[in-house]
């Protein structure tokens, strides 16, 4: 029973990271590195909570989170795609900006009770399946949405024509350009989509797993999502595995603290991040061995008439 409840909690905790990781996969597949995930998640979390607080409708909150994340990523797109700014610097700036802005704007909302949130929504029939039912199908609506998103994005990337363009633009923008597709348009679309998913990931925290708002409530999950992109080898299905693994460590850590162990809570809090480092080391070794590389043009600006 304990195992099942930990696993169910793992899925709930992993949802936010899964959304952010899927978003970053889209962005990096298009060849743009966005290190602003943490900032976009925070802005999504705040916009989602504030909107829900004002309207009482968590669905409007989720929409606001999408918009906030998308808006912030649009800054990144403008700086890196149109103005040729350094992608690392721009992304870091976005994280700092998102953190500061949400801390400032969110001050009056700290500690307020959520008027509504995405509660557990057992799916009739499916929830009754032994073991799997309680783990997978007694979750909230956003988690169900993330279930659907994983195969959908996989199909989009590997089995559709626009997905082909997405894979191509991250590998060789010059080719995409010479074939008559707009590199800039493709990159704008996926950077903004990626930002929207990161924003939704923030809302999955402030409206579902920990309803409410506190300053810096994402606590580094954006960075973990970025690390998981490498573990996932830019593949949505592997992203789900990674996100739930991380969710599991987080859930276990909470459970241990709740059980009153003698291990220092600071040490337990550290575990998810330690786990991330270990996973990253292992994943990198595997990608090197299997020769799965990052999109070849990741992080490189593209300008047509640039001459070397």
């Amino acid at each position, binding site marked *: 029973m304990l195992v099942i409840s930990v696993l169910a909690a793992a899925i709930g905790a992993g949802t936010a990271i899964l959304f952010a990781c899927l978003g970053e996969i889209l962005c990096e597949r298009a060849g743009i590195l966005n290190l602003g995930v943490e900032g976009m998640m925070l802005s999504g979390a705040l916009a989602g909570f504030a909107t829900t607080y004002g309207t009482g409708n968590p669905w409007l909150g989720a929409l606001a989170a999408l918009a906030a994340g998308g808006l912030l990523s649009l800054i990144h797109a403008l700086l890196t795609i149109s103005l040729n700014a350094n992608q690392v610097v721009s992304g870091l700036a976005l994280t700092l900006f998102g953190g500061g802005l949400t801390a400032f704007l969110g001050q009056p909302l700290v500690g307020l009770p959520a008027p509504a949130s995405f509660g557990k929504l057992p799916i009739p029939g499916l929830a009754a399946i032994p073991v799997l039912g309680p783990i997978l199908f007694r979750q909230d609506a956003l988690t169900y949405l993330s279930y659907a998103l994983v195969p959908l994005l996989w199909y989009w990337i590997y*089995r*559709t*024509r*626009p*997905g*082909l*363009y997405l*894979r*191509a633009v991250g*590998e*060789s923008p*010059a*080719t*995409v*350009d*010479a*074939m*008559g*597709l*707009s590199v800039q348009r493709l990159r704008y679309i996926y950077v903004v989509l990626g930002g929207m998913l990161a924003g939704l990931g923030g809302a999955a925290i402030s409206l579902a797993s920990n309803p409410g708002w506190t300053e810096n409530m994402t606590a580094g999950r954006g960075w973990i999502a970025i690390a998981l992109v490498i573990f996932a080898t830019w593949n949505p299905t592997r992203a789900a595995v990674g996100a739930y693994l991380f969710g599991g460590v987080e859930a276990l850590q909470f459970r241990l603290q709740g059980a009153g162990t003698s291990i220092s809570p600071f040490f337990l809090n550290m575990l998810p991040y330690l786990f991330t480092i270990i996973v990253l080391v292992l994943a990198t070794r595997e990608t090197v061995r299997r*020769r799965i590389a990052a999109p*070849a043009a990741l992080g490189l600006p593209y300008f*047509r*008439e640039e*001459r*070397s």
Partner: protein
Amino acid sequence: MNAVELTSVTKRFGSVVANDNVTFAAQVGEVHALLGENGAGKSTLMSVLAGLYRPDAGTIAVNGAVQHFRSPRDAIAQGIGMVYQHFMLVDSLTVAENAMLGQAGHGVRLHTAPVERELAELGQRYGLAVDPRARIWQLSVGEQQRVEILRLLYRGAKVLVFDEPTAVLTPQEAAGLIGTLRDMAADGLCIIFISHKLDEVLAVADRITVLRHGRTVTTVERRATNRHELARLMVGRELMGVVADQPQAVAGDAGVVNLEVRGLSAEGDKGVRALQGVELQVRSGEILGIAGVAGNGQRELAEVITGLRRATSGEVRIGGQDTTRCSPREIVAAGVAHIPEDRNGTGLIPSLDLQDNLILKHYRQQPLARGLFLNGAAIGNFADRLLSKYNVAAPSRAAKARLLSGGNQQKLLLARELSGQPRLIVAVHPTRGVDVGATEAIHHLLLAQRSRGAAVLLISEDLDELLALSDRIAVLYEGKVMDTVPARGADVGYLGLLMAGGAQSGAADHGRPMDTGGIINQDVAH
């Protein structure tokens, strides 16, 4: 009828005028060569035609109607496609997927099967066989070029522009390509062929337009011209003739062995074996040419010898001293000069000025250095002396290296490398991307070093250059030395076979004229 017509096209990059009022027209059903030296503006002009660059002035007409291309998409819609020098292919995608990029399609789902069928049919029709389901990284360079051509045909291109297409091919593959181009022209397509090689232009073209310094010189009929006239039109003066056939050392001469490579193996960047048991000897006063298609271990060989890459097994001896595990600095001290493949990456520091680039190997020595400090006056003298001795055309020694033309950058590099009286010179593509005048100068410098008694390892993809300069030629294929032959009287067909990995039995075929012969001795009927 003119398939395409460019009128008074001007294109500038900053203050550099790449095309100055150029006019050019190519007809349906012809192979039209665009001949000119490196930097004459050929590729720029064709990039304008392909919609990649927008002209600053001038018009483009397709089938008589003026068009304004804002992107390659507009050019493709008008049936104009280009096979670029650096292939525009996505390595991780399949052949069919590459063909589908940007193609107006039906629906969102990816249907590769019909595309694969059509590509296979087109491949058969033009003798461009390649597996449509293979991923690009699995294909050889020659096959990748076929993919580029097939993609254009698949997308209905009527005007196909080829940017120096034979540079990456073996002589046999090049002859095959020329046959394909003739077939395509006979089928009613318009083929534009960019090149600076006179022989292949004469072999393939119906008409030839010559560009020099960004301007059109003239357009001539293939029938009504010859090699000499084309050379004069291209360079603007009489060529001194290929440097060839300076007195060459007799093979097996008793000179001291300056470089000895034994059983050398090394890995490439991707961890695959790039060199496998290479055996070489270069004697004092000898030039050993290394032939081979790009990517068969040439770069790795040069890097291992100069200490930039670690050998996995085997031995390198320079002047009798084992340098296999030595650092680049120790190897420089052993008397090795290195002219690397990418002069702007490994050879020079483009953002430093000329004198700083010139002292990179010598700055620790007296009198350039005085303890911790540099001696400005001595460095100035040293730099001025080298710049004038090696004829580097530069505004001053304080100019940035990146502002020089390719040829002058290469001379600058040679000035630094050759000034220390090296015992061994490793030269990788020393004349690539360099104009004819500088090429001549570089050839003379290398020959002078040989006469002085240096050993020269000359790595090049240009067989003519190797045949003209080398005493012996070794062919590298997949990291192995296939055979080493005396350069004098070497058979191009045999070398081409070796470059393609054929004739592993070695000397049995040696000297037999090949019926598939290289372009150089090929006579294409018109």
